[in-house]
């Protein structure tokens, strides 16, 4: 696709439920990032993939959060036993790999998660 695609754009769920958020990066971009943006805040880093592997998952808040990228393209962020505090915009970004880490990040429009 032309840009980073995220689905669903909106997700409303109940406390305790399991949620999956999907990111389809720009074709050819091997680097993929997940960020979380709460209302009135800047995006906060969650996890970085280089290819299929999670090269940096230090931003994941706890073990209820997990992300995969099995074929090095589409990624899924998985949240177990959702809590009201998980309500936020989840942003995905992708970039070409650059060893100096200077590549521009291209963000999707986000998945807005609301936990009731």
């Amino acid at each position, binding site marked *: 696709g032309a840009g980073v695609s995220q689905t669903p754009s909106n997700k409303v769920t109940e406390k305790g439920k399991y949620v999956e958020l999907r990111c389809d990066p720009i074709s050819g971009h091997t*680097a993929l990032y997940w960020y979380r943006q709460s209302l009135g805040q800047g995006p906060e880093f969650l996890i970085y993939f280089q290819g299929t592997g999670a090269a940096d998952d230090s931003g994941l808040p706890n073990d209820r959060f997990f992300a995969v990228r099995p074929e090095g393209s589409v990624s899924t962020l998985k949240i177990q036993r959702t809590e009201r505090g998980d309500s936020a915009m989840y942003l995905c970004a992708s970039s070409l790999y650059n060893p100096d880490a200077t590549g521009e990040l291209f963000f999707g429009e986000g998945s807005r998660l609301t936990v009731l």
Partner: protein
Amino acid sequence: QKEVEQDPGPLSVPEGAIVSLNCTYSNSAFQYFMWYRQYSRKGPELLMYTYSSGNKEDGRFTAQVDKSSKYISLFIRDSQPSDSATYLCAMSARGRGNNRLAFGKGNQVVVIP
């Protein structure tokens, strides 16, 4: 203390005014400095990108970085209603392909026609 501080107060200016935004940071390892623009309910888009200290100009936008003071600024000249958005500063340290960004909270800017 957060790595990046950006006073999140909203800013309303009349059309044609100069908008001045700034951020401070604490991590000396940051070498790449960016400003992102985010329209309501959209993802951030890169506006300006600067490496190390200095100024960079792109049309009506000027980004300044002062590493000695750990202070970065964005100026928007001749502001237009279409500039109304949230502006986020972001920065990163280099290394091993990981362009992990640290963001400020953002400033919501409203340009009044």
